[in-house]
């Protein structure tokens, strides 16, 4: 792949993206417009995340890609291969070893540390989009800090269902200012959004970048009498026995049989290697 620059994008484009990233870091939760490029994978398949990863990547980095928490889902494989081919960086499935982690729909279970960068793929960066389709209007609402509509929506949920009926892409408020879409992570992951690592969000098709610097205050929207609750399946992982991880429900037969397993495959395999065994698991072979 010598025909292309390191990590595919040319240096001018990277510079443009880095400027947007710096602006995003300076105004946490604010959506910065950037001149997203057409990438050799489709819009909606992680082009924003890929451009952000390409802009922050150095030859010394160790790169990890997860989709739904797993390293071996097809699109995660495809993106990892893309950077292996265009940047030649080391790749890993271990959360602890990675310096740059690109993710879709999950935050790793293991606490990230200073020096790590978590890059999110974002389909629709605008948390108000489902309430107001016009971008001109929503930008105005952010500028005026006019978030009443969002609270009305959450209130109507409670009035209708007795609960806030948003289970993923649950809106948050950043440092008491911008309402932000944390990308479609399950709300189980929301409490992890205040963390030691840098979090960068890239929306390629919508041409927006936003960011959370380390230790930023991120609060999930709620009401005093209906406080935010992070939900997960009421089970333990059937492979590693973890009772605190986000679980996938896997259908095992056509008679209602199912099992629950950690969505974070690295977390689960580390636990099994350490000797933990779930209800349907087998002892790790030493």
């Amino acid at each position: 792949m010598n025909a292309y620059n390191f990590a595919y994008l040319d240096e001018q484009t990277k510079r443009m993206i880095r400027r947007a990233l710096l602006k995003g870091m300076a105004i946490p939760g604010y959506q910065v417009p950037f001149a997203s490029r057409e990438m050799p994978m489709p819009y909606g398949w992680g082009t924003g995340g890929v451009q952000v990863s390409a802009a922050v990547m150095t030859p010394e980095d160790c790169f990890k890609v997860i989709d739904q928490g797993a390293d071996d889902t097809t699109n995660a494989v495809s993106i990892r291969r893309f950077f292996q081919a265009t940047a030649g960086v080391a790749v890993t499935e271990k959360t602890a070893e990675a310096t740059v982690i690109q993710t879709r729909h999950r935050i790793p279970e293991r606490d990230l540390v200073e020096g790590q960068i978590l890059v999110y793929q974002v389909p629709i960066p605008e948390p108000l989009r489902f309430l107001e389709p016009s971008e001109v209007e929503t930008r105005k609402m952010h500028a005026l800090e006019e978030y009443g509509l969002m609270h009305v929506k959450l209130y109507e949920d409670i009035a209708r269902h007795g609960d806030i009926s948003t289970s993923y892409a649950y809106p948050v408020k950043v440092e008491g200012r911008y309402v932000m879409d944390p990308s479609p992570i399950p709300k189980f992951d929301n409490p992890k959004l205040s963390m030691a690592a840098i979090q960068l969000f890239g929306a390629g098709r919508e041409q927006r970048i936003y960011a959370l610097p380390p230790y930023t205050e991120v609060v999930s929207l709620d009401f005093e009498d209906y406080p935010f609750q992070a939900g997960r399946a009421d089970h333990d992982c059937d492979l590693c026995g973890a009772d605190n991880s986000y679980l996938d429900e896997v259908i095992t037969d056509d008679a209602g049989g199912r099992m629950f397993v950690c969505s974070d495959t690295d977390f689960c395999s580390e636990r099994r290697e350490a000797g933990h065994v779930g209800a349907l698991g087998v002892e790790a072979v030493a």
Partner: protein
Amino acid sequence: MYVAVKGGERAIDNAHDWLAEERRGPEDVAELGVAQIKTQLSLAVNRVMAEGSLFDPDLAALAIKQSRGDLIEAIFLIRAYRTTLPRFGYSAPVETGAMACDRRISATFKDVPGGQVLGPTFDYTHRLLDFALEAEGLDRAAEVEPEVHPVMPRVSQFLNKEGLIQDEPRPEVDETPGDLTREPLELPAARPLRLQALTRGDEGFVLSMAYSTQRGYAKNHPFVGELRIGTVPVEMEIPELGFAIEIGEVVLTECETVNQFTGSKTEPAQFTRGYGLVFGQTERKAISMALVDRALRWKELGEDDKGAPAQDEEFVLYHADNIQATGFLEHIKLPHYVDFQSELELVRKLRREADMRQQMREAAE
């Protein structure tokens, strides 16, 4: 026993191999040549160049071959290639008035200087399948008289002389228009950006938007003032030389519509225009573009906002690009089971709570 599914890598490799086999098809049928696509499927090549925003018939033909004839996929290949190309500079504006026209018609005048030239058009063909084309080897090109390219002044100029049609507005300062492919789209967009978005927009989308204006959603009856298709030279100023030289030529389709007049107390009635300019012989697209351009000019021309989709700049510009649209549409094929799981948990919880409320009601009765 369930074993966590591994094998994404192998599955991808196998899928790619299978795809390559399907693309080639049975080997007892001759392979399709890129030159054949370029010359015999040239209207497909034109569409790929127009929506791929890259005038290169060879690459467009290659993309069509690689994409098995899926034109949106071919456009995607061209776009992804195009973004990697360095920008040496910008050409001088092309002079479409000096176009060497293969086709030039006006619907507003019976005859015009330079004449009406039908050119290679489907317009008056009867759409009957020509089974003779099935018999390969008998397909001979018809003999055509050698092309002559008389001077063809623009039709709108004739109206303009009498002041009957509005001049194209010129900016006060001659500034370089924005570049949709280098800067993020921000609204409201200036007309040059709108035209850029329309010329690379999906043909089907732009066509339907234009059609909606004809049927009454922001109705603005257009006449095709002029449609011209032909070759124009592209010139670029070379800094070392200090003057412009010709670096190549491109085929363009240009459409100017003449639309119903407007006028006010201060300005007498005047016709207005819509403008379409597209790579290659792509007249359906160019006409559609002109209609949508005209509909989007409502504010500038002091017309009412009728709430029609074709008047809504944000709606049109954000949804015209088929590469953005198809990517986002098709991404729902990717796994979403983490989000789906959280929805499952929520629905189960809501049903449990509803159940409990029901039981309490029954117990109370």
